[in-house]
């Protein structure tokens, strides 16, 4: 059984591409076949975060327009068995994406992979709606910050009205992935808490990814954080989220909560 997952948010820079790479890699590391698809046409970055930027020959637009066959455009990850990437085009814009073309490519991908993970562009226009249209499930990436939460609320509304599932009167599965979370700051009342965001958005929680320098370190070397630092806080948090996507029950840990005495006194994590 194949599942199409969109990683979306409305707002840019919240961690969609990072999460697509990390969840895609983790699912493949757990033994699934996975393709991560970059829908951010014109601003492609997933290839870079996945360390495949020098291997891109054909892209999603080439396949949609019939200039290349799907297998020619798919890039197999050299490190993780079962993981592939379908890159976006850098020279075209999102108008080159057609609804029929996207439908055809997604249908073909469904036949080849257990998971088809679509990295959505920011915004609420064509690129984002096409990325979510065929999804069975959505990961709504949200930072504990007012504008991100508001944009996520908009996106949740669109998932419930604009997707193929919604149009058929079915419910699309929605999961909240809270990223760049700083438990110490939330405890000090400087940042929205997990419960606050959950109460406001009221969709089930898939995971809490802490703010961590491991994420930048991993993207610097073009390796998903679950591969580059599987034992780090964000690495473990992404693995747990991937297991939940697979239907496993994994206890929710709020990462990075340990603080030393000084940290407790000053309410600050000791570096």
């Amino acid at each position, binding site marked *: 059984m194949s599942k199409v997952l969109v990683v979306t948010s409305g707002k840019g820079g919240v961690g969609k591409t990072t999460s697509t790479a990390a969840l895609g890699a983790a699912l493949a590391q757990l033994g699934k076949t996975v393709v991560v698809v970059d829908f951010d046409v014109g601003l492609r970055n997933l290839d870079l975060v996945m360390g495949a930027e020098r291997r891109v020959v054909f892209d999603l637009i080439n396949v949609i327009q019939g200039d290349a066959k799907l297998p020619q455009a798919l890039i197999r990850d050299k490190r993780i068995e079962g993981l592939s990437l379908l890159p976006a085009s850098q020279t075209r814009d999102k108008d080159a994406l057609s609804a029929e073309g996207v439908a055809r490519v997604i249908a073909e991908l469904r036949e080849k992979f257990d998971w088809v993970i679509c990295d959505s562009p920011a915004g609420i226009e064509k690129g984002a709606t096409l990325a979510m249209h065929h999804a069975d499930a959505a990961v709504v990436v949200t930072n504990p910050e007012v504008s991100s939460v508001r944009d996520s609320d908009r996106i949740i509304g669109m998932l419930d*009205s604009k997707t193929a599932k919604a149009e058929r009167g079915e419910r699309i599965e929605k999961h909240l992935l809270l990223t760049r979370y700083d438990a110490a700051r939330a405890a000090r*009342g400087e940042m929205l808490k997990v419960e606050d965001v959950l109460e406001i958005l009221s969709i089930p929680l898939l995971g809490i990814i802490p703010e961590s320098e491991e994420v930048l370190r991993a993207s610097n070397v073009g390796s998903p954080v679950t591969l580059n630092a599987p034992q780090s806080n964000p690495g473990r948090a992404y693995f747990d989220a991937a297991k939940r996507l697979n239907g496993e029950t994994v206890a929710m840990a709020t990462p990075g909560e340990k603080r030393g005495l000084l940290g407790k006194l000053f309410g600050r994590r000791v570096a």
Partner: protein
Amino acid sequence: MSLFNWFRPRPTAPAARERLQILLAHERAVGGGSDLIATLKEEILAVIAKHFPLERDKVTVKLDRGDAFSTLEIDIEVPTMNRGQGATRMALRG
């Protein structure tokens, strides 16, 4: 609560939470409001484009929600019709 709390700025997260709850309650109540704006924008663009060459980002449609009434604001920048420089803007509020 430690002594050090005295030196800390007041927590701002509760304000964020409250503002979001009020705003989103409003935005959800209007429901499909975002769709209305997008539809309006498309239709306005189509009408104007019959008469002027027009760039998409030169048209903004905004709905400001007030308690008693809401304001629909449409701002369109079209190329100047005479030979002069610059652009003409048509603004409409109602």
